């Protein structure tokens, strides 16, 4: 056995080092949090904490159910309307929803659905009724969550729908299945696993959701655990309370992550595949499908349009000259670049290690391999268990107790958090690909005696290059639009674009805010669409 392990020493070593350092980091985080408490370590479960927990779970559950429902309907409609003009563009737009900065999305949603938003204004003008302020509170949180997650769910589910072999549809058509029967027998089995994994991912995202609840929750009445931690630090300076909440948060998130680790996150690529289903449904059903597509596209595009309209009206020269804006822009881009590069590298190294444990030609028949694989997966997804505010709290306390300039601590905190935030998605994309290359080329590479460098240059890199571009774009955009840790560390001295936008939104300068929101949106969309193009292979990829 030792001989076998030595064969793969390079890949195992580097991956293990990373996992061990991650583990140590989490350990230090825990120890710091534990030591920072002045009182005894007794978590008194008072009624407020119970309420917080109840609300956090409740809104996560509702958001997940609604997102899955909407996403499923949309994916189903799109799957059966496989040929119309602009379909590719629409699907690309939907898949970009995952990188849209939450704060920008919320800003757009407020612009439409807020009390003074366009929706109410139009209703007032035409029908003289105003729907009042339904946006702040639970409904606002649900709307924002569905917006962000349903499109992501739809995109992933659509891929599952399109992977159903045509023959099954042929069969169901010849058996004259109703749409319900067809769904139950043909489609549901195919999408079930995706549904589970997407569902658990969305639940975790909504459970640890910060920016949405902060901006639309509206008041301490609608707080989730994350926001309560933020408020305990920033408003009350009650670090003990913050730590208590953090521990509750970690415990529950960790349990959820362990449960859902068995479902791998399924992330689909930008490109829309075109598996055409030839047999259209009845006219009524088609009408329903079209209705769903149009309504959801409308709902999805409107906030973006609002941002564009409101943003164009703002004074760009004034914004661009503002020193704080320039500082934020520079800082955001700098941090995003560094963290996306490191994320890519870590994802590759970890995948290289993990495939040792799952491939037959390597070590997968050892007993310990499956267990190690799970550990690696768990640590790649560690961000979902230790969400941004908790990590921020740990970093904050560390920066207070240990030496080091505030600047270095802030940058380390941001970069670490951004890397860990993108890692689950990066691994979800790179890992399957590297497994494929190993399965395909292992025997050949070993028989040719390729060194690691040669193997990387000729075998791995060309194959994963396009996805690598997608990973870079994804983590760059995640980092660019994040409003998590920066909320604890942000100041006039250290600011990022989302933080700057948050400050603008909270003061008189709403026209400036619209301008900055537009700039941020354009930046994110440009990077997300153009960066993968840089990495595209000139030869046609064969799968």
């Amino acid at each position: 056995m030792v001989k076998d392990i030595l064969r793969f020493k390079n890949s195992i070593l580097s991956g293990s080092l990373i996992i061990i350092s991650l583990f140590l980091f989490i350990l230090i985080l825990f120890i710091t949090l534990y030591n920072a408490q002045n009182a005894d370590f007794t978590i008194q479960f008072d009624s407020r904490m119970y309420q917080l927990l109840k609300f956090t779970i409740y809104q996560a559950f509702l958001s997940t159910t609604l997102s899955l429902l909407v996403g499923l309907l949309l994916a189903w409609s799109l799957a059966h309307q496989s040929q119309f003009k602009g379909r590719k563009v629409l699907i690309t737009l939907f898949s970009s929803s995952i990188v849209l900065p939450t704060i920008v999305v919320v800003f757009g949603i407020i612009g439409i659905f807020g009390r003074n938003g366009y929706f109410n204004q139009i209703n007032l003008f035409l029908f003289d009724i105003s729907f009042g302020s339904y946006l702040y509170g639970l409904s606002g949180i649900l709307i924002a969550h569905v917006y962000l997650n349903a499109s992501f769910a739809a995109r992933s589910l659509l891929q599952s729908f399109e992977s159903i072999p045509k023959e099954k549809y042929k069969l169901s058509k010849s058996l004259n299945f109703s749409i319900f029967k067809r769904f139950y027998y043909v489609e549901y089995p195919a999408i079930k696993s995706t549904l589970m994994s997407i569902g658990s991912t969305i639940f975790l995202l909504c459970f640890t959701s910060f920016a949405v609840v902060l901006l639309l929750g509206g008041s301490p009445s609608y707080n989730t655990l994350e926001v309560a931690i933020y408020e305990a630090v920033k408003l009350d300076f009650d670090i003990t309370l913050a730590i208590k909440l953090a521990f509750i948060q970690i415990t529950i998130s960790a349990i959820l992550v362990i449960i859902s680790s068995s479902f791998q996150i399924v992330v689909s690529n930008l490109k829309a595949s075109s598996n055409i289903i030839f047999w259209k449904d009845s006219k009524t059903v088609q009408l329903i499908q079209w209705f769903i597509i149009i309504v959801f596209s409308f709902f999805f595009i409107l906030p973006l349009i609002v941002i564009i309209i409101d943003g164009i009206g703002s004074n760009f020269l004034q914004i661009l000259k503002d020193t704080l804006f320039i500082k934020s822009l520079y800082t955001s881009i700098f941090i995003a670049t560094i963290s996306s590069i490191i994320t890519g590298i870590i994802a590759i190294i970890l995948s290289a290690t993990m495939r040792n444990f799952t491939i037959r030609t390597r070590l997968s028949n050892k007993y310990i391999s499956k267990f190690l694989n799970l550990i690696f997966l768990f640590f790649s997804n560690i961000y979902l268990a230790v969400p941004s505010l908790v990590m921020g709290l740990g970093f904050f306390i560390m920066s207070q107790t240990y030496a080091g300039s505030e600047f270095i601590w802030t940058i380390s905190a941001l970069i670490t958090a951004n890397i860990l935030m993108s890692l689950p998605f990066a691994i979800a994309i790179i890992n399957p690909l590297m497994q494929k290359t190993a399965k395909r080329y292992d025997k050949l590479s070993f028989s040719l005696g390729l060194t690691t460098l040669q193997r990387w240059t000729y075998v791995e890199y060309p194959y994963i290059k396009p996805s690598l571009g997608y990973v870079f774009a994804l983590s760059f955009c995640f980092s660019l639009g994040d409003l998590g840790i920066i909320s604890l560390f942000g100041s006039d001295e250290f600011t990022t674009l989302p933080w700057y936008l948050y400050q603008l939104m909270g003061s008189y300068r709403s026209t400036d805010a619209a301008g900055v929101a537009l700039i941020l949106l354009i930046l994110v969309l440009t990077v997300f669409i153009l960066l993968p193009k840089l990495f595209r292979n000139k030869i046609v990829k064969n799968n």
Partner: protein
Amino acid sequence: MRILFLITILSIFLIANEIKPTLTIYTYDSFTSPWGPAPKIKQAFEKDNNCTLKFIGISSSIGALRKIQLEGKKTKADILLGLDTSIAEVAKDTNLFIEHTLNITNLNLPIKYEDNIFVPFDYSYFAFVYNENNLKNIPHSFEDLINMPKNFKIVIQDPRSSTAGLGLLLWIKSIYGENASNYWKQLSPYILTITKGWSESYGLFLKGEADMVLSYTTSPAYHIIEENLTNIKASSFKNGHYGQIEVAAILKSSKQKVLAKKFLSFMHTKTFADIIPTSNWVYPVTNISNELKNPFKNLYKPSHMILTNGKIVQQNRKDIINEWLNAIQK
């Protein structure tokens, strides 16, 4: 040769700026905005004292205190300006401030206030502000508020981060006492949102998102004088108004204590008092120059100020806030 000349000039310039000490003041954001008091105060103070006055604005008044606590030993603040007497005793507990050693007995305050650490510099009365073009049925008491129609919305501030929010909490507590929790439960459906600081909530009100905002009796003066608008008004409440006396204090960690003390005494000069009414839109604590018109001449001024003793707030703050949190939690 020319480069050497340029470098010499540059270094002289830099050194010259180094010689002038910098006094850093942490305060709430509306104080430091371009249309707030800070620019004029900066100009006036720097003229008579060879120094640079730097204002750092934070989005909420108590938030400025929290920021100093968060920064710990590395804070650059010399003065914290913008807390009020309700939160002052709590702030004293942080042990971050030193005594000012000034004589503050002869100030124009509606109630007597003396403290060895905190120095008052302006005051006002809390009130709910509305737009009379949009709101026809005006509430004039807290009972009226909870009897408004269902779609009536107010925006208030968080008492943990905003002195205005804390003011409302204490105002309601002073009127309802034991039944305050019950009152908040009834008020809760009318609250549109609870913002961290005053400026965010006032911005929401001006945008039309809410019918009323918790602000000051003197807020309308801004719209009358700066915008020539008379439709923004403050509602006079039958049972009296809670007040706010804003204070400032010197940080123990400050390296410019002498300069800071000079600033605190500067806050009681006519120059300062002339600036405050039309930039911070509240009452100054010393007399303004005779030539200036009183901008609050036609505004409603409550006959007396309800103010809870700081010590009582300090002892009961956590309980009052927890009671409030439990009452509004959905």
